[in-house]
Structures are given as structure tokens and as C-alpha cells.
């Protein structure tokens, strides 16, 4: 038996000194917090910056289907406000550009097994997440990662998050050049950089090798760098201020061509301006997109240019980029074409059709390992590492679609690779198609989740997989993305068909719903953001997908894209097409509507007590809020028709009316004038915090009303109108939630709440 020792001792010098020091500090901080010698808020930020995140129920409370149950964790300190020390949490692990080698895959598998639940989960930003990790285990976990060159430093918290890049960078046929070494260099340079430590919120960076393909999604990041060649010289078209979240912002162009050697200093200057001027107190408006929206891109650019002159020359700017142009990846085996398809199985052909991409380099291909819900078991991951050793060496990446790609596969090896993957149950076809659904953790583990995004995604994946072969080619190519709430971690805005979780109270019982988002575009680096159409109960979402896709096949004009089809048909038409699906039957009629996909918790009869009386009366506020939804929808129509002023005004009117509906629950005779509504709302629902979001958004939605009421607009741009439409929908959702929280509904609204 090996003498019991510690991982620190065992790994010794395999842990890089700087990372080791960082982890030692964290270990000390854990000790201090346990002795109550470190403030809980400081400890919370400390652990977040090391990727140790909270997880659902860590406040010690769990709703068991009929009542909220106390989870009596052992006495002890907290890990942060309202976060029990002993509650398991989530550990996020940063993987710059998603790049992994086989040893790292082995380690991740071991850690998932020893400290988590045996599952490695790939996120929508190429990270890994392990769930149910105890805080005491995080130090060993970090040391073992560090020993294979992975850090969790700044994986969460108000810091530079994982730097992402197209998973095809370097092997892509349309790239200007390989962005991998630049993304990697920037990630290394910014890690722990003093100029990047004082942000009010996180800062996400993405790289893309070309403009038209989707992979890098540069338009939806705080900073997006798009590779361009100018007279043979490498550089980047640089964008700032993009982001999804509740209200998505499209990134703005700050520089048409940043020479490669300027990338690091310019990013540093951007970081310094953001740190200096960005919002710090109000979390909900602290992302850089709000600063840019406030200053305007020209002023922001001027400040950055000025700041750039002040940044002291750093030798690291040059040394970090040394030899970067000669960066290359090595293939394990000689590139050889796959000749003769006759002996190949049907399963291989199907997999090849969707999961194999022919590289820019002759004789080589990229193979995608399509993971259900981004999950892979420890055993699968370890075995996958061995498959990689056999076929590709260390050229593996994770993707923002929660898959792996194996690059530099000799085409002649594809059938053997397929067989090897099939043995591991990792050869599912359909990568990048309608069955390859992206989902955030949602209510499974996320503290902010409203509905079960994974449950819904799993259900859709299963249903669509069963009919995949019969699906029309045009439908196969669509992408579905699901978020558990408006925070959009599932990237629903850029899907062909997106969903995010909301809830509605029906007869006193909360019924899980999803907002249907249409009009988003994944291509062209997240070319456009979709908008919410209508909230549909979770149970009916599969039918939404069926109706939308069938209609697409039926009415499509030639090779028309899904986005063009949506635009041509008009959202009004889709809304009326889905309207009947918004109806929630009474519990007695169909109780399945009252629990979520993949949820075991049923509503008890005790819980039903309030909802069992006269089911016909719809609360006034619900009627009024549903009218506001219609107004928000009208605003969306105006936006689509290019009537930006009208769209903005209608959106504001929807917000104002929703505020009025809420005020009316306390003051029946609210006058109609905006000033009074805003004042009453402020007094009754803002100052009392009754309208505040229970999650992290807090006062964010209420402030939409105040800002729009106070601001005089002289230029109604598309961006402004788009944002107003988004904000109207979110305000209305918040009004529903506020109403449900603050009232006990006596009646069961079993009639559709959609306006006619």
C-alpha cells in the first residue's frame, strides 16, 4: 500500500510554481474562512475567481413538491452569503479555445469520478463543469489540474473568463489564419493581469477565423476578434460590447484592423477603461456593453486610444507572441483519402454525413463526438483519450455546442475511428443538426434556473432522433438552443429556434413555460438575435417544434433560409399558429402540465388546495399583463418592419401598462398618466423591493421603466428599438413573477391568456 500522502507532495514540481502558489493561497483562505477569520463576501469572490461556484439548494432549502424543506447541513460557516459550507457546488474549469491533450482528458475523468458525480459536462463556452463538488475537495482538484497545465483561475467571478475560439481554427477551409495561438497567448497574458482585476462584471472574449461562418460567435462577446489579413499581414477586426444575457447586445466595431502585435496592449487598454468607468455597484448594468451603450462607441474608442498611449510598454507583449506565426499542430498519421465507400456501414455513412468535416489540409478530417446534453462519463472520457492517442494525438477541442472535435484524423482512418467511438457509445450522428441541442444546466443545478432546460432538451433530442431519418434536409440543419432562464447561457438568442424558461401561475400553481424565440442566426458569427414570441407551457414545446418545422418544409421557397422564411411569413402568423398551445388545462384534466420535463416532483393535493376552487375567474392582473404581452409583440412587429420609433414607443407603452397592472394590485384607481404610474410603482414596488428579481437581476427590470420614462430620445436606431422590445418582454415577465410572488391567487385561469 502506498504511504498516505497528499496530492501536493505527490505531484511536487509537476505543479507549475505560479499556479501552485495561487492554490496554496486558496487553501489558506479556505482555512481562514473555516475559522471565521475571512469575511464571507470576500471568500465568495475568492472562490468564484477560482471557478468554485454555488449550486442549487446551497442555501439549505429545497422545494420537495409540496413544501419547502430545510436541508439540515451540518453546522458550520458559510461559503458566501446564504451559501452553506457543506452544500455541494459546481467547479468550472477553463479550457482556452477548448484545446485539450490526452493527459488532460485522463485527469478530468479522474476528477469527475473522485470529486463529482462521474460526469464531465461541457459548457456553451468550451469550459468543463463538474457538479456536486465539496469545497474541501477543490484544492486537490485544482492541484491535479495544474499538474496537467489547466487552471481554474478566473473561471467565474468578475474577471476575464475562458477565451474561446472556433473549434476548427487551424484546420478550417475559410479561415484567414489560425487564431488559436493568438487566443491562447491573450488568455495567458490576461490571466491574473493587474489591469483586468477591477471589473464590475465578467469579461468574455472570443476569436473567429473568418466572418461568415458561425464558430467564433464574435458578435455576442464583450470582445470579439475576427482574423483578417491585410497585405499579407495578420491582424484582427476588433469588436467590443456584445453579449447575450437578458437583453442581447451586438458587439460594435472598434478597430477595422488591429495588427497582431497590437492585440495584447489594445486589450489591456480596453480592460483599463472598462475597469475605470464601468458600473460597479449595479451588477445588472455592469457589463461592458452598458458602458459602451452609455458612452457611444466613438467616445469609447477615443478613451481606449488615449489609454493605449498611457499603457507602459510591457516586454510580455512581444515575448508572449514569439514564434507565433510558425505555430502548427501535428498529425499522428499520414493524411490519406478515404477511397471506396462500398464496404462502409449505413451507421458510418450517417455519422460521416453530419459529424465529419473535411479539413483544409488534404487527406485529413475533423470528427465531432456528439454528446447528449454536453455530458460524458469519466469512463467514456478516459477511453476517448485512448482513442485520440490511437488516431490523432493531442488535437482535441471542446465546442460551444457542447461536443468534442477530434482534428487531424487521417480520412482513411475514419471507419476505424467510427467503430472505436461506437464501442464507447460516442458515435451518435447528427452533430450540428436539429438533434444536437444545446442547453444550459437550468433547474438541474443552476441556482437561477426557472425551467428545466436539460429536461426539455433531452426530450426534444429523443423525439427528434427517433424521426431524424424522415426529417426534411432543411429541417435537419436547424439549430435548437435552450436556456433555463432569461440569462441566456444556452445562447437561445442565436438559435434558429430558441427557448428560455419562464413561469406562469395557473390556479395558484406555478406551471413551467418556455418563451419561444425566433429570428436568431447562428451563422455569420451570431448574425442576428431572435426575439421572444410567446410563452408556451413546457409540455407543449415539442409540438411547437413540430409545427414550426412542418410549416417550414411546407411553405419554404426554394432554398430559403429559416430566418428568411420567418421574416417572410411574419411573426404574427407564427404567433397565431402557436396560440392554442399556450392553453394550460386544469390540473384534473392533465396534471402533466404541472411538472417539468425530467422532473420527479409532482404537485400534491395539498399544494393544489388553493387552485381547486372555481376555475373560471382570471385574475385581473393576468388579463392586463397578457394585453401588455400583445403590445410588446406589436412593438416587435414594428421593429421587423423598420419602424424603430414606433417599436420603441410601443415597447415603452407595454412596460408602462405592465407597471400599471402591478400597481393596480395595491391601488385600484391608478390614473393613466405616466408620471403617476412611475411614481406609484417606485413607491410601492421599487422602494419596497417587491418587484426585485429573486435571482441576480434584482432591480434591473424595474430600472427599464425608470430609464425609458426619463430618457429623451432623438435618434431611434434599430439597436435602441431592439433593446426596448427585449426589455419590454423581460419587464412583463418580471411583472408576472412579482404578481405571483405577492398575491395568493384564488382562481384558476384555465382559459388561454393570450390576447385575441
Amino acid at each position, binding site marked *: 500500500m502506498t504511504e498516505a500522502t497528499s496530492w501536493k507532495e505527490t505531484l511536487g514540481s509537476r505543479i507549475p510554481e505560479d499556479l501552485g502558489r495561487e492554490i496554496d493561497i486558496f487553501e489558506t483562505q479556505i482555512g481562514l474562512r473555516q475559522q471565521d477569520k475571512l469575511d464571507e463576501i470576500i471568500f465568495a469572490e475568492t472562490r468564484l475567481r477560482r471557478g468554485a461556484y454555488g449550486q442549487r439548494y446551497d442555501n439549505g432549502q429545497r422545494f420537495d413538491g409540496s413544501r419547502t424543506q430545510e436541508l439540515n447541513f451540518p453546522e458550520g460557516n458559510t461559503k458566501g452569503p446564504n451559501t452553506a459550507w457543506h452544500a455541494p457546488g459546481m467547479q468550472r474549469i477553463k479550457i482556452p479555445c477548448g484545446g485539450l491533450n490526452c493527459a488532460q482528458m485522463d485527469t478530468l475523468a479522474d476528477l469527475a469520478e*473522485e470529486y463529482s458525480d462521474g460526469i464531465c459536462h461541457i459548457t456553451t463556452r468550451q469550459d468543463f463543469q463538474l457538479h456536486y463538488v465539496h469545497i474541501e475537495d477543490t484544492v486537490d482538484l485544482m492541484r491535479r489540474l495544474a499538474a496537467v497545465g489547466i487552471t481554474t483561475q478566473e473561471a467565474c467571478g468578475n474577471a476575464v473568463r475562458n477565451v474561446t475560439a472556433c473549434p476548427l481554427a487551424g484546420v478550417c477551409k475559410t479561415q484567414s489564419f489560425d487564431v488559436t495561438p493568438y487566443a491562447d497567448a491573450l488568455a495567458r497574458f490576461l490571466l491574473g493581469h493587474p489591469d483586468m482585476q477591477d471589473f464590475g462584471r465578467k469579461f468574455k472574449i472570443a476569436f473567429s477565423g473568418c466572418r461568415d461562418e458561425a464558430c467564433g460567435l464574435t458578435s455576442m462577446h464583450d470582445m470579439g476578434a475576427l482574423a483578417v489579413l491585410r497585405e499579407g499581414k495578420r491582424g484582427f477586426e476588433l469588436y467590443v460590447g456584445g453579449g447575450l444575457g437578458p437583453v442581447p447586445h451586438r458587439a460594435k466595431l472598434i478597430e477595422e484592423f488591429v495588427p497582431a502585435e497590437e492585440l495584447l496592449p489594445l486589450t489591456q487598454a480596453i480592460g483599463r477603461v472598462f475597469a475605470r468607468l464601468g458600473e460597479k455597484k449595479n451588477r445588472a448594468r455592469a457589463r461592458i456593453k452598458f458602458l459602451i451603450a452609455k458612452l457611444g462607441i466613438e467616445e469609447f474608442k477615443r478613451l481606449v486610444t488615449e489609454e493605449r498611449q498611457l499603457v507602459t510598454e510591457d516586454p510580455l507583449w512581444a515575448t508572449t507572441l514569439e514564434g507565433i506565426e510558425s505555430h502548427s499542430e501535428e498529425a499522428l498519421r499520414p493524411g490519406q483519402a478515404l477511397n471506396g465507400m462500398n464496404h462502409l456501414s449505413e451507421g458510418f455513412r450517417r455519422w460521416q454525413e453530419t459529424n465529419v468535416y473535411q479539413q483544409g489540409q488534404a487527406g485529413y478530417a475533423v470528427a465531432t463526438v456528439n454528446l447528449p446534453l454536453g455530458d460524458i462519463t469519466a469512463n467514456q472520457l478516459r477511453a476517448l483519450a485512448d482513442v485520440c492517442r490511437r488516431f490523432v494525438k493531442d488535437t482535441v477541442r471542446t465546442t460551444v455546442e457542447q461536443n468534442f472535435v477530434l482534428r487531424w484524423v487521417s480520412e482513411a482512418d475514419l471507419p476505424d475511428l467510427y467503430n472505436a467511438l461506437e464501442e464507447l457509445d460516442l458515435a451518435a450522428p447528427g452533430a450540428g443538426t436539429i438533434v444536437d441541442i444545446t442547453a444550459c444546466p437550468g433547474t438541474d443545478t443552476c441556482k437561477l434556473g426557472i425551467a428545466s432546460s436539460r429536461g426539455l432538451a433531452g426530450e426534444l433530442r429523443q423525439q427528434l432522433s427517433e424521426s431524424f431519418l424522415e426529417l426534411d434536409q432543411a429541417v435537419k440543419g436547424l439549430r435548437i438552443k435552450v436556456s433555463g432562464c432569461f440569462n441566456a447561457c444556452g445562447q437561445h438568442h442565436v438559435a434558429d429556434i430558441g427557448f428560455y424558461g419562464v413561469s406562469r401561475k395557473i390556479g395558484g400553481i406555478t406551471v413551467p413555460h418556455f418563451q419561444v424565440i425566433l429570428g436568431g442566426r447562428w451563422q455569420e458569427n451570431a448574425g442576428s438575435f431572435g426575439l421572444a414570441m410567446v410563452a408556451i407551457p413546457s409540455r407543449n414545446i415539442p409540438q411547437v417544434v413540430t409545427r414550426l418545422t412542418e410549416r417550414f418544409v411546407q411553405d419554404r421557397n426554394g432554398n430559403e433560409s429559416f430566418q428568411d422564411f420567418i421574416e417572410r411569413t411574419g411573426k404574427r402568423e407564427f404567433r397565431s399558429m402557436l396560440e392554442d398551445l399556450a392553453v394550460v388545462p386544469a390540473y384534473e384534466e392533465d396534471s402533466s402540465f404541472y411538472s417539468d420535463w425530467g422532473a420527479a*416532483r409532482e404537485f400534491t393535493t395539498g399544494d393544489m388546495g388553493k387552485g381547486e376552487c372555481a376555475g373560471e375567474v382570471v385574475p385581473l392582473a393576468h388579463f392586463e399583463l397578457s394585453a401588455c404581452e400583445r403590445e410588446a409583440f406589436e412593438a416587435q412587429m414594428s421593429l421587423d418592419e423598420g419602424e424603430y420609433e414606433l417599436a420603441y414607443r410601443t415597447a415603452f407603452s407595454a412596460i408602462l401598462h405592465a407597471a400599471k397592472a402591478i400597481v393596480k394590485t395595491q391601488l385600484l384607481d391608478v390614473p393613466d398618466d405616466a408620471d403617476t404610474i412611475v411614481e406609484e410603482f417606485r413607491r410601492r414596488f421599487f422602494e419596497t423591493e417587491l418587484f426585485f428579481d429573486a435571482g441576480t437581476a434584482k432591480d434591473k427590470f424595474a430600472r427599464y421603466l425608470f430609464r425609458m420614462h426619463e430618457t429623451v430620445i432623438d435618434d431611434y436606431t434599430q439597436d435602441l428599438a431592439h433593446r426596448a422590445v427585449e426589455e419590454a418582454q423581460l419587464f412583463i415577465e418580471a411583472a408576472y413573477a412579482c404578481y405571483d410572488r405577492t398575491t395568493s391567487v384564488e382562481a384558476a385561469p384555465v382559459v388561454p391568456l393570450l390576447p385575441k
Partner: protein
Amino acid sequence: MDLQRINVKFYLRDGEAISPEEAFRIFNSWIPTTADEILVDVADYSHIAEAQQALLVGHDANYCLDTTDGRKGLMYSRKRPVDGSIAERLRDAFATTLKTCARLERDAGGDGIRFRGEEALLIVNDRLNAPNDEETLAAIEPELDTVLRELFGGAETVVERNGDAKQLFSLQLRARREFDIDTLIENLS
């Protein structure tokens, strides 16, 4: 030797008899009704064929309907340290697993489920203290023998180490004759 993080799995006689969905539902119902330990959450991994398909996460230990090795069974995974000698810790792990198997047998609907008492899997989920090698086996074997004799009422047993060095230390344990769960519980009590 500090042997902690012990996992024990007993296999189902008929793997089809309970679905992950059913186990998920039952585990969820245990969270509010279990008084002697803290159960936190359930997780559903039924979309993966060989995994902890229905997982009940607790503070001291996890329980799951497990198919990781290709066969369905109930696995107990101890997370928090347990006091006592190695034999006492092993006995505790077997006893808790058996108690949970019996509870699942009781709670499963339909025609019911039955576990194969005569075969178990023992894993030490700790590569630092228990690497998967002969040395670990030698260190654990004497005390394991004592516990197995007690568990199987002196029946002949076969202990086989799963050899892959990358895997956790694990032993396949087989008694030469059939046992049901209740008998094993009695043997350990």
C-alpha cells in the same frame, strides 16, 4: 492506511425490472422522508447508457442506479470520512448499501425488484491512498476477508481485482452460492 471513500454495488437480478426514471422518482421521494441523513438532490443521467443513471446526492454519501460497468445495480458511494478500523468501515459500507437495496426493493412498483446478494463490486474512490495495484489489495485483503466471511456466512468467496491501472481500485466479489439482501443484512447485524 486511511481507507475512505468506499463504494459498494449490488447488482439487480433483472436489470429490466426498474427503469432509471422509476429510480429517479423513488430517490426524489426519499429526500424529504429520510431523517437520519442529509439528502440534497437527484440527478438524471438516463441519457447515457453506462453511467450513474439516476443519482441521489447526499451530504455523506451518494446512491445511484448504476450501469457504469454495463450491469444495472445500486451503488453506494461514501464521500465523508468514517471512523474505525478498515474492517469497520467496510462493514459500514456493505451494511448501508444493503439497507438501501432493501429500501429500493420495498419502494419499487410493478412486479418488484430483487438484488443478487451473491455478487458485489467494491471500489475505493481515491487514487491517492488506494491506487489500483496489488499493494493496495494486500493491505485491504485481511480485513476484507473477515468482513466477507461475516457477510456471506462463511460461504466460499472469490475476490478478483479489476486490472486496468488507470481505473479506480476495484474488486469483484462473488460468493459460491446465492444470497438475498435480507439474509446479508441479517448476517451483518
